[in-house]
């Protein structure tokens, strides 16, 4: 059990900056998932915690001790690698027990602990095999066992599930979660799979291009994405975003000629600013002809639990999730309504979320009461 502090950490490979000042702090026993697109620097950050990569600037402290100059073995972290990195010339038992062998644990004790750990991950019958004679899932378990046996203060996972098939991934996900509950070591889990991230994380860190975009509980991030990047990265299909101008008088935003009513409070606060408005596909509603926004369906995606219709509005791809019994087909024109309370607003320049009420704006009481009676039902 250990907490991890990351303070103003930067990383450059040669002259190329890769991480631009990361500030994070992970509580003891927490399961943190770092999520971000390929190449955003997740692995780099993880490897700096592990001690496999130099820290260009800033500090990383584990358990209150700055570890910048420490060798990996002194940091008390165990890591599960993406390709497992099992020693191909050693048996499963040899792989699991290597750390103990290095630290000079006597053979009898070592064998006892290997057997114990192998049991936790269900590998007791494979101890004499070489990694080459194991399936992907079994190798994954060996890699986990190798990390567990050391009883580390910190677990680091670098996309450990990305080489597994979809079904096994779900199983292993549950196992990792169970394991965490049992060992409750601080865990940092890197992935680019948002489902993995949402299901595993106590706290989620979303990264993009060497910056931290947002830190928070998975659902908070889902409901209140801090930027357009997070909004489009979390959730499948991605949030629909469109750039537009708010009109204070009518309390609307314009989308492809149609006026979409928004909360008058918001309209007032935004004062005719250019904004990016977002709405999740699952919040869009089908409505009667002649209401809302018309859209011609390009294609329909069947998901089993529902359908996703893909269309184009104002030159942008737009997706909406509808019920599985909705009668929609490619080529049809449907009418969509966008509930005002489900809209997200982002600054058109910076892409940062605009929170309401905006600091420093006072809302006239008359208008605010008007907003409550505003018939949002018009559209539905």
């Amino acid at each position, binding site marked *: 059990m250990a907490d991890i502090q990351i303070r103003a950490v930067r990383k450059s490979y040669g002259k190329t900056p890769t991480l631009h000042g990361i500030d994070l702090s992970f509580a003891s026993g927490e399961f943190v998932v770092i999520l971000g697109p390929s190449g955003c620097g997740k692995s780099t950050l993880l490897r700096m915690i592990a001690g496999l990569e130099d820290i260009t600037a800033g500090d990383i402290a584990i358990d209150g001790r700055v570890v910048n100059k420490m060798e990996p073995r002194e940091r008390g972290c165990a890591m599960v690698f993406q390709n497992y990195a099992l020693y*191909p010339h050693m048996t499963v038992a040899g792989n699991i027990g290597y750390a103990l062998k290095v630290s000079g644990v006597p053979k009898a004790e070592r064998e006892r602990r290997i057997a114990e750990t192998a049991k936790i991950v269900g590998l007791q019958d494979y101890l004499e095999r070489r990694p080459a004679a194991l399936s992907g899932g079994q190798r994954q378990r060996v890699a986990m066992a190798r990390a567990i046996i050391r009883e580390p203060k910190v677990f680091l996972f670098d996309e450990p599930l990305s080489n597994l098939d979809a079904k096994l991934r779900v199983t292993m996900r549950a196992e990792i979660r169970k394991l965490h509950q049992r060992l409750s070591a601080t865990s940092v889990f890197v992935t680019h799979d948002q489902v993995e991230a949402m299901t595993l994380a106590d706290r989620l860190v979303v990264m993009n291009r060497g910056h931290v975009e947002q830190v928070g509980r998975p659902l908070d991030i889902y409901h209140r994405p801090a930027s357009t990047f997070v909004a489009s990265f979390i959730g499948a299909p991605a949030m629909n975003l469109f750039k537009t101008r708010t009109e204070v008088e009518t309390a609307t935003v314009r989308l492809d000629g149609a006026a979409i009513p928004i909360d008058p409070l918001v309209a007032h606060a935004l004062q005719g600013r250019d904004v990016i408005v977002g709405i999740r596909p699952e919040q869009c509603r089908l409505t009667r002809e002649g209401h809302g926004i018309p859209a011609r369906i390009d294609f329909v995606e069947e998901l089993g639990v529902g359908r996703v219709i893909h269309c184009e509005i104002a030159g942008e791809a737009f997706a909406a999730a509808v019920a599985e019994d909705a009668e929609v087909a490619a080529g049809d024109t449907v009418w969509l309504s966008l509930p005002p309370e489900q809209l997200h607003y982002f600054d058109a320049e910076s892409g940062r979320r605009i929170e309401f009420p905006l600091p420093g704006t006072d809302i006239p009481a008359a208008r605010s009461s008007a907003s409550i009676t505003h018939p949002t039902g018009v559209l539905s």
Partner: protein
Amino acid sequence: MEKRAVFKSWWLPVLFALPQLVLILLFFYWPVAAVVNWAFTLEPPFGGAAEFVGFANFREALSDPFYWNSVVVSLIFATVGPFFCIFIGLTLALAVDRQLPGSGFFRFFYILPFAIAGPAAGMAFRFILSPERGLAASINALSPDLWNPAKYGSHALALVIIIFIWKWSGYTFIFLLAGLQSVPRALGEAAAMDGAGPIRRAIDVQVPLLAPTLFFLLVTMMTEGFVGADTFGIVHSVTGGGPNHGTEVMVYRIVDEAFQGLNYSGASAQSIILIGLIMLFTFIQFRFIEKRVHYK
């Protein structure tokens, strides 16, 4: 589907293969045939056609104590030399593979000796390690003849082996470095996470995974030590087989016997024994060592 070119006439393919065939016949099969022929015949002292003498040439070679001396010298040369070549090449490769500052320069630098011809290196070392000058002179100042390859066969043998090692370590280095670079970096990192320091990582992870490369080098380097051009070249230019046959490796003795002693038949018999010896060694290596090599 792959399309195969088919020759319509019989002579065109033969024509294409001809230069290669001629070279092989001229420089490989013909000498081999000649050696076999000489090994079993003897030219009469007063001229005339060579006579078939059965195994007489072999018997004569094997009953010569100097011949056995050369076998021992060759065995020492071809085991000690390759052992250190591989050991040093491995150490350097492990060091360069860590990518510490300056490793690019050393990668180039370590390969350099291999580009120098054996006899040239031999001449240089003859001066560098000559007992009267420089380093060796100050060693000899402690006590006379602490190092004197001109006088002691064992010193001379050490000298030629050192030169061989100096030159061929660069060769093993190239192969071992290439081998190390194909060992996934993550394995070393995993071992580092497991608490192993650089030396422990090298011994436990990198070297076992280099086993195929090490085995290949063992076979080629021992063959090189027995019959390589450098083995002859170094001995020829540095010691001439002396002092007192102390550095007379088998190849040197064969050349000496054939072209100085003009005993083609004896030299041919020795060549055939040498070939047999190398075949035996290679067989042993493949039979007993290759099995322990992990090819994944």
